[in-house]
């Protein structure tokens, strides 16, 4: 398959080729691939690419998705402007 034009992460335009190359180099967890490519760090926070990346890792390592280490989710789940947070923080409750 022509994996250079296959987008796994729509937020950061990460291709299937990039993901497969990293897995070949030994980066076989979602978090490692995330730190290198920013996959899962865009507006969707991994909701689109998550299952695609896990399936690739699973296919390459022979481990089932159940056995793979899943990525952590942290707040906020969508972008929040800092001034809104600052405004609320002034209340100090």
């Amino acid at each position, binding site marked *: 398959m022509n994996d250079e034009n*296959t987008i796994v992460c729509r937020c950061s335009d990460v291709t299937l080729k990039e993901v497969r190359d990293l897995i070949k180099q030994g980066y076989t967890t979602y978090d490692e691939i995330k730190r290198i490519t920013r996959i899962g760090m865009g507006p969707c926070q991994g909701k689109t690419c998550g299952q695609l990346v896990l399936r690739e890792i699973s296919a390459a390592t022979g481990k089932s998705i159940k056995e793979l280490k899943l990525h952590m989710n942290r707040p906020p*789940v969508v972008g929040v402007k800092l001034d809104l947070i600052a405004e609320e923080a002034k209340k100090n409750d």
Partner: protein
Amino acid sequence: MKHVEIAIIGGGPAGLCAAISAASSGANVLIIERNNKLGGQLVKQTHMFFGSEKQYASTRGIDICNILINKLSKFKDKVEIMTDTTVVGMYEDGVITAMYKEEKYIKIKSEAVIAATGAFEKTLAFPNNDLPGIYGAGAVQTLMNVYGVKPGNKVLMVGAGNIGLIVSYQLMQAGVEVKAILDAAPKIGGYLVHASKIRRMGVPILTRHSVKEAIGKEYLEKAVICELDEKWQPIEGTEKEFDVDVMCISVGLSPLNELLVMRGCEMKYVPQLSGLVPLRDENYETTVGNVFVAGDISGIEEASSAMVEGYLSGLCTAEKIGYKHEKFEELKNDYLNQLDDLRSGAVGKHILEGTKEILVN
């Protein structure tokens, strides 16, 4: 900081029923809904539901939405609704943060939470899958049925589950040509009634087929598909080309679980429930005390079971914080029986296997 008794995240079928149930038990609830109106996916479901009468079989999804909102309005003094508000975080100390439009950041403290966030559409990886014209089937349904926008003229539907079949039919009703429906599985996943209706209109349903690539410069112009072998691998030489300007991806949903993950709920990947779901007890309480769930977030099923799970979860959440419904036992048994009935078919067997894996005491 805003203080409430029960915060319900998501105003879809599960969240609405949870609110009705908790409020009828005497608790004060706050529904936090991301969209500008309540109803979740019901707002675009113009088709009639199956299931049994208790879950409004033969009624259209959009009408079920109004029935539930009416039911909820009977508890006006117990229910607060925040629309256009997205929950953006859940923290260890029980604080929930939310954002109203992009205007205001809000902190909420509640005695209990019911997470009813629903699901997210899965995608597929194939060359040029980022061309304009390639949509999720749910997005196409929203465009057509909520906004009255025709997504294009010639469609290839990828996925023959109920969503794929129903959206195909609705596209045809809107005068859009559906060239074919594909599914990688050897069998059609959706109900036979829907599939038959589509076949009678002359649309081929190709099982064991998948998308090989999308072709186009500025937008989708062609889709190439191919047959799959028994190991789900493409068979060379079986490629077919379709002139289409829309491709609809309908390959399933996954639970929208991120708030539970960050809250520290114990999670498990369960294929039968379509993804990462929280461990929970019979009352739909997760491993984090006073954090309850209902609907697709705890395993992908249909709106009918989401509604019953909502009623059950709302009832039990209210009881947990001291509002025991006078008919608690009777209602709880009724909801459990309704769920058993809904899960009695072939698909239900699958769901039951999955729920066994997440059920804790």
